[in-house]
């Protein structure tokens, strides 16, 4: 299996440890990742979609073109990119008029959308690899680790376009979490948005959403949170201190990227994964797993 690899901006430019874990995990499962020359930001589902759907689609289409030229399906790590790229891909494949319109713009940069590839997220690729194969690679199951799965919005919604999992009660991530030997803890407001989309206009209020969510996760007695999207990661991992500083609660909820969990279960060391780069200490988790950072 090999994919055109689209890490997005947030992951490579701010959270390289996520990219690192994803590459290592997929590498261990013999999934080949091909760099996409000249790829840009996906098109940004929040800022750009809001400013101009047209530009948004065009920029997304450009990235799709690059993957088409490589003749590979596109794998993106970021859920935001997933919504952007998949929406563009589905819409452009389905809507002849839109396609011609966008291709006119693309012509100016000497590209054309042909609609020859699919857009995939990390879990879809892991599904393709297959649970059985992954099981065989698990050497250090994350025993009695209570994990609160946070799906994030753009992985499953809008479902009529993304058609990945149920938009209100998805289960894929939970299954993958249990695949690592950990237990997926059910908690209130599982699908509550991380609030990243609110950050640009009202950072303070978006923190309120983080605080809420972390509250439910703690109440459920989870050891940590598992996320898939860099924006959720930023919201949950980077802001916990800020919340405390601004006189809110004092949350200390470790936040892991699912790929990191998978790597740990496959026996990789916290060091090679660069877990130290997390802002909220993973100490408790690692201790429970009998690992040292």
């Amino acid at each position, binding site marked *: 299996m090999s994919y055109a690899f689209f890490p997005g901006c947030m992951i490579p430019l701010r959270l390289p440890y996520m990219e690192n874990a994803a590459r290592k995990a997929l590498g261990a499962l013999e999934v080949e990742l091909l760099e996409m020359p000249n790829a840009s930001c996906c098109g940004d589902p929040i800022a750009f979609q809001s400013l101009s759907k047209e530009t948004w689609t065009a920029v997304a289409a450009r990235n799709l073109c690059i993957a088409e030229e490589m003749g590979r399906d596109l794998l993106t790590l970021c859920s935001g990119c997933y919504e952007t790229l998949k929406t563009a891909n589905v819409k452009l494949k389905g809507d002849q008029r839109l396609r011609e319109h966008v291709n006119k713009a693309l012509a100016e940069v000497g590209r054309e959308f042909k609609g020859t590839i699919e857009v995939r997220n990390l879990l879809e690729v892991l599904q393709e690899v297959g649970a059985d194969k992954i099981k065989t690679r698990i050497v250090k199951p994350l025993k009695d680790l209570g994990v609160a799965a946070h799906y994030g919005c753009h992985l499953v919604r809008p479902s009529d376009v993304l058609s990945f999992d149920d938009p209100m009660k998805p289960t894929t991530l939970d299954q993958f979490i249990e695949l690592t030997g950990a237990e997926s803890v059910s908690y*209130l*407001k*599982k*699908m509550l948005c991380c609030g990243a989309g609110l950050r640009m206009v009202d950072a303070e209020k978006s923190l309120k959403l983080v605080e809420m969510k972390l509250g439910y996760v703690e109440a459920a007695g989870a050891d940590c949170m598992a996320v898939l999207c860099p924006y959720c990661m930023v919201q949950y991992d980077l802001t916990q201190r800020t919340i405390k500083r601004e006189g809110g609660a004092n949350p200390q909820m470790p936040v892991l990227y699912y790929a990191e969990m998978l790597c740990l279960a496959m026996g990789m060391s916290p060091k090679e994964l660069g877990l130290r780069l997390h802002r909220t200490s993973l100490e408790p988790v690692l201790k429970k797993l009998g690992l040292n950072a």
Partner: protein
Amino acid sequence: MIEMSEEPRIGVYVCHCGLNIAAVVNCEKVAGEAAKLPNVVVSKDYRYMCADPGQEMIKQDIKEQKLNRVIVASCSPRMHEPTFRKCVESAGLNPFLFEMANIRELCSWCHPHYAEKATEKALDLIKMAAAKARYLSPLEVVKVPVTRAALVIGGGVAGIHSALDLADMGFKVYLVERTPSIGGKMAQLDKTFPTLDCSICILGPKMVDVAHHPNIELLSYAEVKRVEGYIGNFRVTVAKKPRYVIEKECNGCGECANVCPVEVPNEFDENLGFRKAIYVPFPQAVPMKYTIDLEACIECYKCVEACKEQGREALNFDMKEQEIQLDVGTIVVAAGYDLYDPSKVKAYGYGLYDNVFTALELERMINASGPTQGSVIRFSDRKTPRSVAFITCVGSRDEKTNIYCSGFCCMYTLKNALLLREHYPDMEIRILFMDLRAPFKGYEEFYRRAREEGIQFLRGRPTEIYEDPKTSNLVISMENLSTGEPMDLEAETVILSPAAVPSAGSEELARALTVSRDASGFFMEAHPKLKPIDSATDGIFFCGAVQGPKDIPYSVSQGSAAASRAARIMIRGEWEIEPIVAFVDAEKCRNTKVKCGVCTTKCPYGAIAADEGKAALVNTAKCHGCGTCAADCPSNAITQRHFTDAQVLAQIHAALEEKPEEKIIGFLCNWCSYGAADLAGTSRFEYPPDIRVIRVMCSGRIDRDFVLEAFRKGAGMVMVSGCRFGDCHYISGNYNAEKRIKPLFTVLPRFGISAERLRLEWFSAAEAGFYVNLNKEMSETLRKLGIERIRVENEKARPFLDKMLQQSGD
């Protein structure tokens, strides 16, 4: 059929209908002009033709002027045709020699601002009627014998009442029930609204009456497989599933169940409690006969021993399914409904969270003979919840599930809330609702009572439910619409109120009965207002939830209504069928030479037989008179009486005598599109007076030649219309019409006639607005093209049309 040779003597009577017609149409003038038409010997106008003096006038003229055709130009034939038919009949004239011109709904009412053109149009309509009248021939009504026995499908509260009423009237009734016992959903309920009496206490006696009634033969654990025949003469095949218990041997002692080692969930208790592999679904079951669930039986034969000990041998493991043939005159369908499966609304977590229940599950819990002997508990801890939240509109009023309002959910939710209050005075009970609908007698009072009892009502549609992993309580997210604030509501138990949906297998049943279903899958009544009980197929009637969600009082009254509709047919021993049926001209039928049988494939009722070498033959009693066969017969050998080719062509010619390019010939089906045209009139919607309407029973009758002929005669436009697909009153007539007419859109342009001059439209009797806009569009097209262009096109096309019409019309 009576032959009639003498020269037509037509009387024309133009009705003013007070000012309804006269205010727009110049009736005197029209009558004057009509007098000049060929074969018209009398032409008068009068204020109210339908009033006695008007009718007297007609009768007198028939006698004195020896009229043998009568035309009344007044309202819609759907309104007064029967009146005037009776009138001429009483004067000794065959009723089918009467013809009507609709100059009110189709003219005066919808063209108030076109007085002059309207008057022209009125005259045209009379011309057309007169032209048709010349070709009318007297018809004898067909009489068919009626078997004085009825089949009732479904043993719920509606079916039970229908069966009892019919039986009391002295008719033999076969009651077929799919499950081992009659009683239906009502038997599962604890109490009923709006008076809170015990459900089984009022239903039980009725069930027993069914069991003991000498005129009722109860076929439980059986299903209707096939239905052949027609009104008065249905032949029904019923498959009786094996109980593996000989009904007349079993005395219902229940020893077998006592010794049976196998416990499986009891469907009757909504799978909250258990039953044995040999069982009766509930203590009051009728018939009180045991049934072995072979899916669960481990064949230990303990039951056999136990039965022997009772000195009986009621068990028979070799029983096979048996087919039973029934001959009945009428059929009452009371197949009921199912509850929507709430697990499909993922956000509410039914099936995922322990303490989310459905209303019917609550009914079983709170019922003294239910799995918990009447105590309401939670799955998670078996404790009685201190707070309960009801959620309404689950699976209804939602485009993702069902858009319709299920109607009775609001009421049963109120009832369930009151029951809880009765059992648990200090329970916190909340009803979450969007709109609360309590429209019938005593219902709003019932709602008041619920508020009196301190039940809290929260307006808003819950969006998500999550389970608190520690307490197994449920947290409901919603907006409190009264305050406009989002809120999380915690409840120890949630009760969902699912909508009613068509019962499983109703699709197959509909097919077996050849009755149509509406968009939501419920059975389709013949007319939403005036024939709510009848199906489109004569002799078959609906009652209860099979036709749409209903509560008990409504279902019961429909049950009785269906009984009387059915009795109305059976009481007479014979039934008259409108003789507007098809007949085959054996001379022309090519089935005698080559193997053809097209008609047999087109007839929706299997009323035509075409044995090899013989001419096709129509079973008059089976024929519903849609005329599809007549239109599709490759050798024009089939004619539909009263809608013959000659008659329709005469109408076309008459309509296009003058200024054909300015006119639109509209073929409308009696049930939907003509209904819409009438409705446009009665609603006083105005549209341009260019259309000349020709009414046929079904769009299936509309021959391709009719369209071609219209263009050949220079028509500006032609419109072919009928019911929306799935709504055809003759099951499939409109599909055949489409197959036939569609190709013309590619053919006509080749002749030089622009495609936009032909319209093929499907709309329901309710869509008056659609009809009006359609007319506006068409008149606009006429104006756009302009008379000249149309003339040119027609000239160019004529030779081709001549050729085509010659070929088909041999």
